Each structure stands twice: as structure tokens, then as C-alpha cells.
């Protein structure tokens, strides 16, 4: 929804963002050990202490580490004593940000800390992600995440909207621009590689890595106190499509388009977009759904093809877009997060800086 639809609601902004370097393995760190530097970094940017935060919301998935309730231990990094107002989503942190945004809208809190993390290294991510599929008709076949993305890529190729070299170009560009992103896992020249699942080559697939991210949201005047140029959330919405892949048109993303419409993306041009497209073909689908032309700077961070820490990569898109506004490099940015196979669920936000 957009603010314009609901007059009188509060202005809410992302006022700080921090992320870890994304690494293939982080054996020496527990989840909370990986997370804590990011929490401290994001708090330091605003001068806030954990005790000052009105609401805390996190995103993660226990399936990644293979341990139940692992998110409760991560709470140690927040300092949850004396008791705090806290919630958790078993999803990417972008959805935790959405929950925090609604909490701030209610007026119950003026500031929120949102964090998310994922350690994919302990397990085999392609197998782990099969557990999010329909348990009756699909999960018993163990179709892995790369295979499902490959079906989508082939559908796009069959529709004449891409070919293998166009896909390769997306991965190459993502890793080239990621040379400017010290947190990215794959930077610079990366061979396109052999087929992972044809038509996708390793270069079309995201690296598997561990990482964490955090943002701070604040409402109204509080945002201006904490940040010289807050990234105001002008609209944010998320939509989901049918679970069954055979029902969907895999060459399109109507849920992204609808979320974008409801978030107000199409009301005025954006200058920057951070898209969560873990596989190269998905960037083509998203650009089409979001009507992004070459005038928009897309994924200057390198995007998910350069670093895709599960459960944090979507929140990082929000943070990267916001950070560009903080630095004065963008005035109106789009941030997108996805979850589920073949872009099943999509969240879109519009962020704006104050006029200069």
C-alpha cells in the first residue's frame, strides 16, 4: 500500500543499514556471532542502544542450520533482557521489515530494528530448499532450487525472451559491478561454467553463502534526528502466486507487477532498482514486470548473483536501495525481494529521499 491511500498515517523511513561480508563458509562463527557485528554497526550509525529500540523483528529459517528455534539464540545478540517487543518471520528479512513497518504505522513504536541472517554452509542448500515445496505432489520428487529455476529459464528461452548468451551477460554484469561492493561473495570475472541444470550454467546461479543484514526504521521526526537524509518508505506491498508451478506463467511475474502497482512504483519514474533475482533469467522476468528500462540503474550492488545469503538477500536489497538515498546517490529507488521457487512471492518497496 502507499501512504497516499491512507491519509494521516506516519512517514516511516529506513535510517540505517549494515551487512556482513557474504562468505561461502563461516564455520568459526555461530549464528549470533555472525550477526552481532552487524547489529552493533547499524546501531552505531544512529547512536541508538538496543534499549532505545521500540520494536525488533527478524527473519531467518531453521532449515538452513538444521536446528529448531535457532532464531531464539540469535536474540542473544540483541540484548533481550530486560524484555523487549520482538517478533520473527520464517522468511527473508524483507518481510520482517514489512512487519516492522506496520508496527510503526500503528504508532506503538517510533523505531524498529530489523535483522536477518542465513548460514547455508552447514547443509546442502539445493536439497534444503526442496522442503518449502508442496509436500504432496512436489517435495517427494526432491526437485532442487536450481532445477526449478532452470525450468523458468527454459520457458523464457522458448518464449523468445532470452537465450543463453543473454543470460550469461546478466551474471557477468552483476559480478563486474560487484567489484565495487566489498561485501559481495563473487566479484569480478567469474567463468560462466558448465551446466548446473541445463539451460542454467553455474554463472547463471547465485553463490551459496552465509551472511546477515540489519536496518533501522524510524517514524517522522525521529527519522530526521537519526539520519541526515532518511529513505522514506513511500509504498510497500507483497503478493504471492499459486503454489503449483504448472498453474503459473513462468515467463511473467504478475505478483511483482501487482505489488509494484500497490506500492506506487508506476506513479513516477525510479532512478535506481535493487532486484532480488537469484537466477539470471529472473532478472529478465522482473525487469519486464516492473517496466524498468535502461534509464534505471539496476543492481549496482551486484545483486543476488554476486551474493545471495538466504533470508538476508531480500533485506539487503532494501538496505542497498536505502543506503543510496542516504548517500544522495538516488532520489527515488525501488527495492524488491523474493521468496519461494521461481519468484513465487514478491515484495516491492518505493523509497524516496527529501527533495534537494
Amino acid at each position, binding site marked *: 500500500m502507499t501512504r497516499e491511500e491512507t491519509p494521516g498515517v506516519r512517514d516511516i523511513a529506513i535510517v540505517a543499514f549494515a551487512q556482513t561480508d557474504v562468505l561461502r563458509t563461516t564455520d568459526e562463527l555461530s549464528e549470533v556471532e555472525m550477526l552481532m557485528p552487524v547489529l552493533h554497526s547499524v546501531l552505531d550509525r544512529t547512536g541508538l542502544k538496543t534499549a532505545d529500540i521500540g520494536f525488533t523483528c527478524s527473519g531467518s529459517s531453521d532449515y538452513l542450520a538444521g536446528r529448531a528455534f535457532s532464531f531464539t539464540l540469535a536474540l542473544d545478540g540483541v540484548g533481550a533482557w530486560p524484555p523487549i517487543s520482538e517478533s520473527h518471520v520464517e522468511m527473508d528479512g524483507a518481510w520482517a521489515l514489512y512487519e516492522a513497518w506496520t508496527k510503526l504505522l500503528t504508532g506503538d513504536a517510533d523505531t524498529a530494528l530489523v535483522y536477518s541472517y542465513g548460514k547455508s554452509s552447514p547443509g546442502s542448500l539445493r536439497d534444503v530448499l526442496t522442503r518449502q515445496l508442496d509436500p*504432496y505432489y512436489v517435495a517427494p520428487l526432491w526437485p532442487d532450487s536450481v532445477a526449478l529455476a532452470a525450468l523458468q529459464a527454459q520457458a523464457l528461452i522458448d518464449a523468445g525472451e532470452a537465450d543463453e548468451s543473454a543470460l550469461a551477460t546478466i551474471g557477468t554484469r552483476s559480478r563486474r559491478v560487484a567489484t565495487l561492493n566489498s561485501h559481495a561473495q563473487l566479484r569480478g570475472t567469474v567463468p560462466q561454467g558448465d551446466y548446473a541444470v541445463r539451460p542454467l550454467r553455474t554463472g547463471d546461479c547465485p553463490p551459496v553463502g552465509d551472511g546477515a543484514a540489519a536496518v533501522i526504521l524510524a517514524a517522522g521526526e525521529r527519522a530526521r534526528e537519526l539520519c541526515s537524509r532518511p529513505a522514506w518508505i513511500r509504498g510497500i506491498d507483497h503478493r504471492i502466486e499459486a503454489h503449483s508451478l504448472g498453474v503459473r506463467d513462468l515467463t511473467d511475474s504478475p505478483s511483482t507487477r501487482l505489488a509494484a502497482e500497490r506500492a506506487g512504483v508506476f506513479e513516477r519514474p525510479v532512478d535506481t532498482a535493487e532486484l532480488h533475482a537469484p537466477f539470471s533469467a529472473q532478472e529478465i522476468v522482473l525487469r519486464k514486470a516492473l517496466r524498468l528500462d535502461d534509464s534505471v540503474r539496476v543492481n549496482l550492488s551486484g545483486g543476488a548473483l554476486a551474493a545471495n545469503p538466504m533470508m538476508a538477500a531480500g533485506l539487503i536489497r532494501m538496505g542497498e536501495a536505502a543506503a543510496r538515498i542516504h548517500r544522495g546517490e538516488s532520489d527515488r529507488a525501488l527495492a524488491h525481494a523474493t521468496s519461494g521457487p521461481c519468484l513465487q512471492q514478491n515484495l516491492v518497496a518505493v523509497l524516496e529521499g527529501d527533495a534537494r
Partner: protein
Amino acid sequence: MPEVLKAPLVVEFPFTRSLGPVQSAFLTGLRERLVLGVRTADGRTLVPPVEYDPVTAEELHELVEVAATGTVTTWAWNHAPRRGQPLATPFAWVLVRLDGAGTALLHALDAPGPDAVHTGMRVRIRWAENRTGAITDIACFEPHDGEPGRPGGERQESDGERVTGIVAPARLDYTYSPGRAQSAYIEALSTRRTVGERCPSCRKVYVPPRGACPTCGVPTAEQVEVGPRGTVTTFCIVNIKAKNLDIEVPYVYAHIALDGAGLALHGRIGGIPYDQVRMGLRVEPVWTDGARYPDHYRPTGEPDADYDAYKELL
């Protein structure tokens, strides 16, 4: 810094799921080599069938038979099959729209290589020898040159009961690493020492350490050896014998604040009748050969600790 510990961790569970009327009919049908779809109000036939229309959310129940032949709508060549997947030899993942269906079903296609597969190719179901009422009753698809099949044309009636549930075993393999702080704790235990970490802010010593102070939200790093003796801060008497547990009931399970620790650990109390265990009892660990942690704690014979000495640790 000691080497970070690692160990295999297997998470395995047979998920038992009940079926609604539509899924029950579909999976019962597969057992009889019959593929059923479900008709929507606007006349589409969804295969595999679902209980609610994905567009209108209207409840669906009109089942229709479709053919065991169909057309590939998209595909992906899987040259390295993974555990649990339908075929152990290289195969294509396919979405197949069965003849008579309006939507596509995900499964595997047995084909000699990627050059033998294309979108639009005609395929048919290869049925599994032993069918139980599960999606895997379709062993896979195979290329098909002949005429389109008749809806329900391959049915093999059986007098088995209707399938009302499935058991879907799931296994995931991990390599567990407990991280720096807990690795150090476990390493120390191997020499029968207990180490915690002190919070630089509130000075509390956490045992076992997790690398963070949950009160202050700051990293902990300063290692502190605690114990081996400690004080029972609170306890309970266990009267029910747990499965596979080789301990006679009743026994006492207690919170034990090791000397120097800022919070209590769990442990069993032995070497004293269960009804004589009390708050303030001074105890020490008892190790058995080859154990990775104390088997239990027993009284030291010291006078009981003053309540004031441990009241903050309850």
C-alpha cells in the same frame, strides 16, 4: 584459537500427512493408473488437482479423468541426479500438460540426452511397478510417438482402500559447527574443565558461552574457568522413567551454579538419597571414563551455601 569443531548432523523425519477429498481421490487414482484433474467453475481442468481454485479461491470438487499422455511445456536437463529424485540416471525435469488438462504437472522425463528433449514434445506416463498412492506412483514420463491416450484409458481397478494419507520421509544432512565460543567450551570439557565467557559490560560469566551477552547484546571473549564445585540453586524430583534412559527413578535434576559462573547449568544429582537434596547443597562433578560431560554431581560434604550467595542465580 583451537580448531573449530565440526560433526555430522542428520535431520530425518517421516512426515505423515492426511489428505483432503481431492488429493485423496487423485492419489488413490494414481495407484490405479488413473489420472484425475479437478474442474474449475470457468471450465479449466487443473492437474494435479487442488481443493481450491487458485484464482477465485472457490472450493473445487468436480473430478475429471485425463489421459496418461501429454505435452512438455518446459524442461530442464539434470545431468547429475540428486538423492531422492525420481531417476538415478540423467533425466529432464519437465512440466507436462496431460491431454485433457489445462495446467501442467512437474515430474521427470526419462530420455537419452538433452538433444532428445524439447518443449512441445509428446510424452506418456511410465507407471511405477509398485504403487502406493503417492506422486511417485508415476515413475517418470517417457517419450511417446503414438496417439493421444484416452482419459482413464490405462486404469487398473484395485480393491484397495481409498488413500487418505501419505508418509513422506525427509532427510537432510548437515555439517554442524558450534562456532568459536561453544567450540572452546566443548574443547575444555574434553580435559574435564568448564569454561565460560565474561561479559565485558555487566561482568557476568556465561556457561556455556555462546559468544554474546544476552543482557547487554555485546560479544563476549574473555574465557573464565569455573567450578568444578558448585551450589544447587533449585531442583526437581523426577518420578517418571524416560524411554531408553538408564537411570532409576526417582532421581533429582537440579540447577547447579558452578563457582564463579553467572548462571546455573542443568545436572543430575547422585550420591545422596533423592529426598535429602536441598537448595544450597554443595556439589562436585562425577566423571565416568570416556564421557564428554559429567555423569552427575555429588555432595562435596561442605556446609550448605548461604541463600544470599546464590539467590541472584535462581
